[in-house]
């Protein structure tokens, strides 16, 4: 009897569609760059859509004011846009910060103020500080969200420095 229950339980847990919430497959993992002893991988964690991202040069000695390329469809107006970054290594948190990208009294980038439904392609500098990345593997969670905390983009990134 017990064995039967166990089998039934395993079957319900593993059978397709048993979770019932109809979650689609995860988005594929993309390579943002691999060069100079650095590898950056990312995966969209927005269940609604994927996005495209690349960095024009990458190395362990990350230069300041990097140029990036970024393509996405907006699901919200971005008059106000904020970026949250959470960096962890080996399961412990190293750094958390929040950065305003677009604000009503200071739209930093030319794409600020674009509207829901627009397709955005940004190729340009991001005004980051230069940094030397020590050897290791890092997990980074990046979230872009609006003033009303609606998700614009979400990325799970892995940075490997070797």
């Amino acid at each position, binding site marked *: 009897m017990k064995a039967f229950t166990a089998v039934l339980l395993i079957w319900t847990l593993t059978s397709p569609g048993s979770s019932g919430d109809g979650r689609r497959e995860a988005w594929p993992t993309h390579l943002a760059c691999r060069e100079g002893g650095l590898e950056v991988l990312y995966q969209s964690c927005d269940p609604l859509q994927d996005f495209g991202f690349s960095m024009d040069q990458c190395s362990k000695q990350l230069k300041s004011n990097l140029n990036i390329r970024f393509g996405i469809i907006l699901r919200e107006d971005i008059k106000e846009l904020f970026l949250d970054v959470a960096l962890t290594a080996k399961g412990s948190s190293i750094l958390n910060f929040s950065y305003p990208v677009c604000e009503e009294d200071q739209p930093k980038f030319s794409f600020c*103020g674009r509207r829901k439904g627009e397709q955005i392609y940004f190729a340009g*500098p991001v005004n980051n500080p230069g940094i030397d990345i020590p050897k290791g593997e890092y997990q980074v969670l990046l979230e872009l969200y609006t003033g009303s905390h609606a998700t614009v983009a979400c990325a799970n990134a892995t940075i490997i420095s070797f």
Partner: protein
Amino acid sequence: MAPDVSCFLLALLCSASFKVITSLDQMCIEKEANKTYNCENLGLREIPDTLPNTTEILEFSFNFLPTIQIRTFSRLLNLTFLDLTRCQINWIHENTFQSHCQLSTLVLTGNPLIFMAETALNGPKTLKHLFLIQTGISDLKFIPVHNLENLESLYLGSNQISSIKFPKDFPARNLKVLDFQNNAIHYLSREDMNSLEQATNLSLNFNSNDIKGIEPGAFNSTVFQSLNFGGAFNLSVIFSGLQNSTTQSLWLGSFEDTNDQDISSSMLQGLCEMSVESINLQKHYFSDFTSATFQCFTRLQELDLTAAHLKGLPPGIEGMNLLKKLVLNVNNFDQLCQIHAANFPSLTHLYIKGNRKRLHLGAGCLEKLENLQKLDLSHNDIEASDCCNLQLKNLSHLQSLNLSYNEPLGLQSQAFKECPRLEILDLAFTQLRVNAPRSPFQNLHFLKVLNLSHCFLDTSNQALLAGLPDLRHLDFRGNHFQDGTIPKTNLLQTVGSLEILILSSCDLLSIDRQALHSLGKMSHVDLSHNSLTCDSIDSLSHLKGLYLNLAANSIRIIPPRLLPVLSQQSTINLSQNPLDCTCSNVRFLTWYKENLQKLEGSEGTVCANPPSLRGVKLSDVELSCGMTATGIFFLIVFLFLLIILLIFVARYLLRWRYQHI
């Protein structure tokens, strides 16, 4: 056998039967019954049958409607707002909205439109807002002009438009907003602008268009509400093109990702030839920055120099007597005196926030600004051991002061004596050093709003809030009380006129029954994110009609004696509490269901106990703690048997006694 039977009976009597009601999964989300529906991201190919005919506001973006025509929305006659963003619409056929008289907003952003029929937009009596952003339009003739007489805003951003010349019969009379953001407009001619002649007080947006030339006189004697040339490479072109124009506000800022020429004083000469009230020059570099730079700014009322790489403003600027509002956020000042405030004697609003260096306030740097009403000095790393009378000297008309997000400030008694007319004071996230029994806010007779959230205050100082006779709104979140308790005598007793009190995230364990007794006027109390239990509700018994937030506390059981206290309030939030859904809390659970209209956050108001009901919404729990019919039947049988037994025992005893007489 006997104990078994009684256990069985007891179980029957006390059995609590519960039922969980789960609402059926609807495809669209109802935001307002029969009126507002959200059907976004569902991949729908038609309007679902479940939507009522009375729907007025429909968010239908990210679905699939390659063709829309007269039948598509024919059932929803009351539509006022229709969002069809990114529905892959190719065709809008004739008379699609024919019967939608009340439609006022139509959003078609991000659709690859191939063709719109001549009568595609006919029908709505007052179509006011039309969004055609990123629809591939390259020629303005693409837009059917019939029925646009009432149009107030037209959004045409991110298309391939190179000329803003509208067809002759385009009705621009009621147009207030015309947005050409991110197009390919390089030249503006007189003829282009003439097609907008009818419009008055128009807001025109040319942000992220690389304007290389404007025909002289194109903007001649036209009156605009606002003009936006954000990201323009060469501002001289804009200034010379805007000769003799009149506009309320002119946005000429730059961005991180745009290249532009440095601004020289001679470039700004063009401002003398036009009439502008408000100008924004964010993120520009100035090649020379002298008093001559401001020569043509004399009629200006508002100037925004956010992130303009400034180390100071030159002294001796003359004639800027009209300037009312000055924004100097995100610059590189060392000393507040470097802005030479005496240049702007009429200033009423001054914003210096997010300075890139630690800002030193100095002494009396703003003393010439006698008319200043609003001052924002937040996010500046300001540190002062004795604030703020020397620093804010002579600001006797100041009504609003923001010193939030700074380094520690030491406050003495009457720390704001120089600004006696303050109505709003924001000190959030700035550590305040106040020695007991000092009263730093003493004599702020007009102060209505005080934000002291996360100020690391010494809450045992009973005199901290003394001398605030008119205080209505106190934000005290994130401050800590000794032992997590607000005692009977506490610092809130001096602010009897309080209407809004926020004590969330204060690590509170309890509030004394008498603690809030002197606060009789309160209408909004936020006690969320503490560790309060139901006992603290007692402290609110003298208050009626409150908005009461008790979310994220440790409330498990609310005894019946406290229900009247809750009943007399107007809105209550009890979400994220470890609420008990057993029979010991049944009176509260019944009350909850009877008062659903008063309750906020019902999605997050769930049971924590018993384990079988963990996570179930309180409104879905049905508990019956009385006796069930079977219970009553068995009770009667049990009593009947008991009586028979007693009779037998009595007879036996009597017989026994008679036998032994």
